[in-house]
């Protein structure tokens, strides 16, 4: 697979490292601010005046029943015309300019999956995630088989 041309952000939650095109990130919100004291963040949250759904995902990319308020951030993503947020423990720019993307082995490649490739970053593996496909996955019945968070 060709080296990536665009910049990437490394988004971590539930032990999973996702690599997302930085252009797809609309904003990064601090969960503490949104929590506003004692009320738990609802799955539908107003962020900067723009209403968008917020979800917590598990390491298996299943949608948790409730937003995980232990996460520090909400990353607001833009997928085509749809804007949505996912909670994250950490978000950082990938310092490597042109990471080498490796295709997933054929035996574990699923056509509907938003993950098609991975990058080795020192000791870590980060999975490249297409935001449009992630939004499609979040809205599919397949993503809601597990409970969590």
């Amino acid at each position, binding site marked *: 697979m060709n080296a990536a041309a665009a910049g990437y952000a490394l988004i971590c939650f539930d032990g*999973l490292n996702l690599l997302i095109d930085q252009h797809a990130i609309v904003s990064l919100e601090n969960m503490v601010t949104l929590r506003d004291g004692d009320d738990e963040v609802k799955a539908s949250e107003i962020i900067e005046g723009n209403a968008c759904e917020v979800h917590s995902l598990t390491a298996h*990319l299943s949608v948790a029943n409730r937003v995980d308020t232990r996460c520090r951030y909400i990353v607001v993503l833009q997928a085509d015309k749809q804007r949505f947020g996912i909670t994250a423990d950490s978000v950082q720019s990938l310092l490597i300019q042109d990471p080498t993307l*490796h295709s997933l*082995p054929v035996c*574990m490649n*699923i056509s509907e999956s938003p993950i098609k490739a991975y990058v080795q970053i020192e000791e870590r593996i980060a999975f490249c995630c297409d935001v449009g496909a992630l939004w499609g996955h979040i809205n599919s019945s397949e993503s809601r088989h597990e409970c969590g968070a």
Partner: protein
Amino acid sequence: MNAGHNAVLFEFTNGRHAAIGLHEVAELVMSPRLVNVPLAPDYCHSLCIWQDRAIPFVELAPLIGQRTLKKISLALVVTYFAQSNGEQRWGALGLSTYFRMMSVSDDAACLLPQDSPAWPSIAHSCFQLVDENVPILNLNALFEQRLQLIP
């Protein structure tokens, strides 16, 4: 190692065995480092980090519709040449117990087990070992295609 050994036999679930060619074995890794791959099929749910490579980690039991009853704590790293381009590749088979080397001759050939329709897709031959039909895995088929899970 006995000079006559040409196969490696391993148990993939209670009392069930499969084999690969001895020349296909690269290394046995204890406590392999695995990274879960989201949405990957149950039988190959992880990448195994081996010698700075991330290689697919496969468990046979779920693939043929059986449960993995023992804890998988070993990775048998195997190597094969991709049929598509002749490139050397590596994969890992999850094991719960050590493998053993053995000699297999052509006169032990038999039919594949009938307990799973997956066998013809992932095994290229089979031999009789006491009262068990032991499939010999086709590693290219196992790692280089997306297989249907048997419910």
